[in-house]
């Protein structure tokens, strides 16, 4: 073999080896470094009090939302923040199972500087792994943050070391944010066909939808998105939250009785049973779309957009886009509205419905990870965001551009704001874009207005609801699209409920995941069973074999301990 052949052979071998050993290109690029330290500062009209800004700091945000921009400074609000702090956010969209992504990131040790972690169980995993950094050292210099969240911070402390590792994005809550509720969506033409009936109990809906199906035989009945990763766990038994005793604080193995202040087993709950019973009745009557078990939200939306579905179970926001599609297709009268629903027992008891006001909403937990290059600077920014100025900017926009202030001190939205609300897909204002990861109060400001004007009842009623929807609610006897959800209700604070957690790695934590797994697996069987009572008894028997009461006892013990030692 001559030297040429040897050289070629060697080169081939080296190429293969080098290509096999190439680094992982899947990880998001670490773009947090100050890339251009010599870049001319943006603000040529400098703020007098800050003659020089620190280096540009771009933070990657993994998001399940679909922002129209890649960088926050492409929006009007983002530009203001960039000018003020030289901080920017790069949005990295993610589709898929986000909880799974969080688990994978933790396992791979690959996470951004700020990370939204949905659920205290995962937050604990991140804390135990030493990934989430404690925020206590920053609190003495964070007057705005501690003032705004003074009431909530104790609920955010979930570990035995009593340190704060997270903030939560959408607390506190105001009543305006609580309606409409995740109840049931009904096609308005069906209501019109049957003379605008007053519906509330599951039986009344069942009879109504039977008649609707008879009058509209080509429809596919009620749809839902059980195919989502949270679908079966979170939606199938959800009717328990529509009564006067429970709020849906979590999708775990328990429900919390706000009257007795006790955790109770999820599957042993009567309202949960009624929930499954309702879905079972719907299925056996041919009123529940069989594809619901595998449909995710996009498939469900398609069916709503085509007007095929008579109704939709849960998920109040899923009707907005379909309603727009129906208008575009010339089917205005087939738009959907959300209506309240309760089980028969709940209607009979007629207890005021509990509306949960989160002192702690673990679903919106955000942590700073050990990959944060300048945690102090990040938290200074978080502190500013928590101020009145910050909240108004990120939630209402720029004064004079997106809103004006009247003589009474109340904000009035401008046309720019209205256009932004009505055309979310083209939005470049950046208003509300950061509510996913920055502290964003859902309560009222000192003037009694929502920080985000889009949620002011009179604004929302005019901007978000269509003429047909307003007409439907009026025909049902409502004063406005929210009034029906505010009758016979009572606000219920979450208190310590979401702060009590079981270590997910412990034997009880593993047992809890098994209990939930058993429920999720058997939910379709319960919904589709020809004989519901028999199927329910079988599942309960299997459930009791796991001894779930151990979990409940532990939770109640921890709750009492926390209550005694806040």
């Amino acid at each position, binding site marked *: 073999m001559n030297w040429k052949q040897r050289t070629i*052979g060697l080169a081939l*071998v080296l190429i293969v*080896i080098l290509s096999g050993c190439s680094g992982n290109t899947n990880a998001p690029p670490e773009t947090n470094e100050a890339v251009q330290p010599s870049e001319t500062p943006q603000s040529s009209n400098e703020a007098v009090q800050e003659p020089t800004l620190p280096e540009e700091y771009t933070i990657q945000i993994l998001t399940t939302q679909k922002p129209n921009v890649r960088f926050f400074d492409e929006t009007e609000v983002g530009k203001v923040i960039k000018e003020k702090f030289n901080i920017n956010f790069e949005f990295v969209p993610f589709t898929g199972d986000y909880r799974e992504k969080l*688990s994978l990131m933790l*396992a791979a040790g690959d996470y951004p500087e700020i990370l939204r972690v949905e659920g205290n169980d995962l937050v604990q*995993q991140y804390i135990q792994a030493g990934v989430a950094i404690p925020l206590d050292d920053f609190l003495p210099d964070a007057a705005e943050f501690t003032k705004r969240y003074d009431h909530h911070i104790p609920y955010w402390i979930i570990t035995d070391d009593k340190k704060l590792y997270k903030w939560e994005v959408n607390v506190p809550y105001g009543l305006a944010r609580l309606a409409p509720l995740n109840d049931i969506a009904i096609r308005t033409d069906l209501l019109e066909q049957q003379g605008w009936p007053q519906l509330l109990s599951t039986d009344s809906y069942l009879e109504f939808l039977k008649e609707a199906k008879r009058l509209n035989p080509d429809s596919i009945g009620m749809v839902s998105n059980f195919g989502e990763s949270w679908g079966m766990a979170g939606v199938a038994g959800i009717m328990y939250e529509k009564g006067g005793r429970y709020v849906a604080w979590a999708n775990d193995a328990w429900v919390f009785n706000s009257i007795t202040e006790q955790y109770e087993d999820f599957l042993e709950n009567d309202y949960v049973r009624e929930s499954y019973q309702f879905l079972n009745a719907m299925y056996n009557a041919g009123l529940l779309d*069989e*594809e619901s*078990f595998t449909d995710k939200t996009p498939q469900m939306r398609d069916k709503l957009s085509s007007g095929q579905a008579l109704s939709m179970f849960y998920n109040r926001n899923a009707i907005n886009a379909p309603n727009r599609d129906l208008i575009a297709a010339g089917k205005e009268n087939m738009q959907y509205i959300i209506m309240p629903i309760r089980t028969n027992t709940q209607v009979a008891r007629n207890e005021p419905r509990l509306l949960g006001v989160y002192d702690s909403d673990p679903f919106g937990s955000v942590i700073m990870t050990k990959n944060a290059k300048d945690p102090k600077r990040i938290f200074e920014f978080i502190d500013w965001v928590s101020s009145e100025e910050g909240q108004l900017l990120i939630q209402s926009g720029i004064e004079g551009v997106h809103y004006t202030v009247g003589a009474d001190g109340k904000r009035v939205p401008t046309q720019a704001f209205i256009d932004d609300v009505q055309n979310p897909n083209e939005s470049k204002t950046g208003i509300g874009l950061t509510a996913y990861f920055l502290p964003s109060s859902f309560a009222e400001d000192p003037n009694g207005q929502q920080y985000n004007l889009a949620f002011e009842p009179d604004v929302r009623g005019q901007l978000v609801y269509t003429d047909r929807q307003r007409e439907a609610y009026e025909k049902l006897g409502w004063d406005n699209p929210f009034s029906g959800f505010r009758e016979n209700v009572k606000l219920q604070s979450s208190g310590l409920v979401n702060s009590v957690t079981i270590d997910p790695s412990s034997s009880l934590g593993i047992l809890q*995941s098994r209990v939930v797994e058993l429920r999720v697996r058997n939910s379709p069987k319960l919904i589709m069973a020809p004989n519901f009572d028999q199927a329910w008894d079988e599942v309960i028997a299997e459930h009791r074999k796991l001894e779930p009461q151990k979990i409940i006892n532990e939770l109640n013990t921890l709750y009492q301990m926390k209550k005694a030692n806040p």
Partner: protein
Amino acid sequence: MAQTGVSGKTVFTKMYRQRMLFMMLLPSVILITTFQYLPLAGWMMAFKNYRVGHSLWNAEWVGWEQFRIFFVQSQDYAYLLRNTLVMNVGSLMLLLVSSLVFAILLNEVRVRWFAKTVQTVTFFPFFISWVIIYSLASSLFAVNSGIVNQMLVNVGVLDHGLNVLGDAKYSWTLMILMLDWKALGYNSIIFIAAIAAIPPDLYEAAEIDGAGRFGKIWNITLPYLMPTFIVILILNSGWIFSSDFEQFFLFTNSTNWEKMEVLDMYIYKYGLKLLNFSYATAVGILKTVISITLILSINQLAKKFTEKSIL
């Protein structure tokens, strides 16, 4: 110059003389060692109470606890092994037989351009990803909106669409047939190549002896294909407990999991979704050990009954 005898050559001399061949082999050896053998050190997780983000070395030793949980506490092994074996054995058998028959039939087609066209067309599904296949299956077989169901209901064959994608009773058939459709063209190539290697004078001799087409197939083609069939069977038997993850990830849902969930999905669920790495590793080890035992056993059986084996 006296020739060096075979007995005089050392192993190293042989290796040196064949160094180019070894160098060609080297990248594969490095890749397989790096990505298949080195990770076996992670099997330690199965014997420790490993928690994500913490040091594996410092984790508590728990011995066979995870294996005990799998077999004694959870009882999941029963339906998992059943589903995995039924679908994988069914797929393997159907695929081998159908590929063999397809190759033979294709060989019998006299119009060569037609045979080539059919072979090419049947090869295409192999390159289609399971994501596309799932979308197609959903469009075709969805209960209410699927084209096939709609057609069958409209012509009166069915009163109501068949829930092929959701109903557990169709799961095994669906998966076996889908895999067969996807891999038929690819697997038949191996048999087509084997048929091409059969000496043509055998067929001529058979024709002289009065053998018809079927006789030639039965007496010449099939016996010549048997060694290939056995080799492929043995090689694939080691994969009996491994499923195409993408396929099952897409098709498994809350309504058909009882018949559809296989070992790989179970390992994924407990390992990556529930972060119970120790448990998932233990199940993975069991799968590997059983697969190795199986391939060795089948190899021995094949050697004993057919005098053909690969090990």
